[in-house]
């Protein structure tokens, strides 16, 4: 109940006392003796649900039903059938979609991690501007369109609030893919990585933006693109060598899309960094550097069997070092990795 000053706001008046609802008999919830995890409902929620059950039971299509679904969702956005009902009401009442999106925006702030809210958003956005129409204009025109601009602003705010909100990032991927906003995405990702070099959601988004919806199993990276990515990663490793994200990104990217460049290009660059006085200590102490070397040598040995013995010897020494000094918590894994080197 919202109480302003000493007066109750209109909406907080019990439904039973409202003329609009006189024709409805609320339906009570049934609980047996074996009721499991019953919730100590507030009187307000209990009453709202009684009326909602009554209108949903017959599938009533009306403005009062629509506003009732809003009130219930604001208490419990996880009520999955209410969303199905609301979607139907919005369609059949021909509600203003922009206003519906306004409402979703308002409650999204309260429930940033609710799955149904984000999915409801998706269906509203595609109704407001069909992707097939959107793709007829340029990307610049698409991002200045009020619908998409608003979604991008909303996402900025959500990610600003919680830079790793999984739902926000995955909705962002949906928006960028559906409306082909690839150019602006690389810029956005770069901004986020520079804001927090340890934000793995941002690094993951870089992979997403690089591939731009192409099927990973058929993508080969052009050498100049791969080199540019290696440089980008090395510059960010310098900011914080003991940071999983850029290491996973570059080894994963190359392993999938330019495997030989793991040892022709990445290897010399990271060895150069490790030999640089300014970074030597930090590089030696981070498990990610040594683990990357193992991945690189494994690929190199697979491609060049003549070098295998030497690479296995070096890798063996690295596993020992990781197990005994650099990454002791995972020592059992490194010991196992050492024993499986020969069988690679």
């Amino acid at each position, binding site marked *: 109940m919202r109480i302003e000053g000493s007066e109750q706001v209109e909406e907080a008046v019990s439904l039973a006392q409202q003329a609009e609802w006189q024709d409805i008999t609320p339906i009570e919830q049934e609980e047996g003796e074996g009721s499991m995890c019953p919730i*100590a409902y507030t009187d307000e929620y209990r009453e709202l649900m009684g009326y909602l*059950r009554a209108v949903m039971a017959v599938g009533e299509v009306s403005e009062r039903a629509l506003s009732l679904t809003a009130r219930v969702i604001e208490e*419990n956005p996880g009520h999955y059938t209410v969303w199905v009902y609301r979607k139907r009401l919005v369609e059949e009442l021909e509600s203003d979609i922009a206003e519906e999106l306004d409402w979703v925006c308002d409650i999204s702030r309260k429930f940033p991690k609710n799955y149904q809210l984000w999915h409801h958003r998706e269906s509203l956005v595609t109704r407001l501007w069909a992707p097939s129409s959107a793709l007829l204009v340029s990307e610049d025109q698409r991002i200045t369109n009020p619908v998409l601009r608003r979604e991008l602003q909303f996402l900025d705010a959500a990610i600003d609030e919680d830079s790793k909100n999984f739902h926000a990032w995955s909705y962002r991927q949906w928006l960028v893919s559906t409306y082909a906003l690839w150019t602006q995405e690389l810029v956005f990702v770069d901004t986020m990585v520079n804001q927090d070099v340890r934000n793995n959601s941002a690094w993951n988004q870089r992979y997403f933006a690089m591939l731009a919806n192409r099927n990973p199993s058929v993508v080969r990276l052009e050498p100049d693109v791969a080199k540019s990515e290696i440089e980008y990663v090395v510059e960010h490793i310098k900011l914080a060598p003991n940071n999983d994200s850029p290491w996973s990104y570059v080894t*994963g990217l190359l392993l999938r899309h330019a495997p030989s460049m793991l040892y022709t290009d990445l290897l010399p660059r990271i060895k150069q960094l490790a030999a640089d006085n300014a970074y030597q200590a930090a590089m030696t102490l981070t498990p990610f550097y040594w683990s990357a070397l193992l991945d690189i040598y494994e690929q190199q040995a697979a491609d060049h069997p003549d070098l295998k013995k030497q690479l296995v010897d070096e890798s063996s020494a690295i596993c020992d070092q990781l197990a005994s000094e650099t990454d002791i918590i995972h020592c*059992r894994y490194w010991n196992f990795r050492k024993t499986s080197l020969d069988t690679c």
Partner: protein
Amino acid sequence: MVVDLDLTAHARYFKFCLNMLPSEAVSQDASRMTIAHLCLVGLATLGQLNDTLSETRRAQMVDWIYEQQIPRAGAYAGFRGGSLFGPHSSCSYAPANSANLAATYSALCSLLLLGDDLSRVDKHAILGAMRQLQLESGTFVPHPGTNEHDPRFIYCACAISSILNDWSGVDKDAATRYIAECSNYDGGMTQARFQESHGGHLYCCVASLSLMKKMDALPDRQRTLKWALFRQGGGYHGRTNKVPDVCYSFWIGAVVEMLGGHDFVDTGAVAYFIRQCEADIGGLAKWPGYRPDPLHASLGIVGYSFCCPEKFPRMSPELLLPESVLEAHRARQTQ
């Protein structure tokens, strides 16, 4: 390991939750079946289920669960998430009284935990409805009328099929193809192709493959195991560069078990983190010093059992059930 979990306090916590959840839990009103399942799993892992809940209470709970089974053909069949939908007889608009895959999975597990033989389960209705929830891409929606889809629901479909020992509701090849696409550049797995590697979705993907007996479909099993193992820095976290959260003791811990990596884990460190998450009032919280909730309490305790298996009933990593309960169920099925 000198200090151990406060088993009595946690059993008491689950008992309280089964009896009543506070008003703040209203956002879980449609997921009570899942919360109930988690409480029962917690009690079962502590070896306290039959001591905490009398035979009468267990029978009453079984009846309550069956009251959530949608009786009519035509409406989406299975189990609904709670009784907030009202009496079945009052509803002529079918979507208002709908089951969903997660609640159906939790209902079946809960029935087994309470000692029921599933004889009142309408298996054909559940499997028939399930077929319609699988999309062409291979993933599942949880109920009709939504565009929400992800590995959680593939997992629920696989778990239901495994428990009912009937895969007619799942196109396994399509589901496997979808899961394989969820494999990410870092060896992790995620909700949909290109999204960030995530421990919860990793669990759903790997457990689904295990249940379908399609583990060979993992593009690089060793790399995936490594990703899972490297979520440990003390306790387990769920995504790269995030802080540990006790629920990943299960999501990641179970994946490590399924991929044969148990011997590579510093189980002492994981167990230590889990104990840090114990709350004074009983239960476990996601982080040390935070408020407990049934999900983190249950998953933390199951995760703890993976760390010291000799002290607890053996828990299935693929299904949130004790192995003994599963074995008894399989034995009944073959009779």
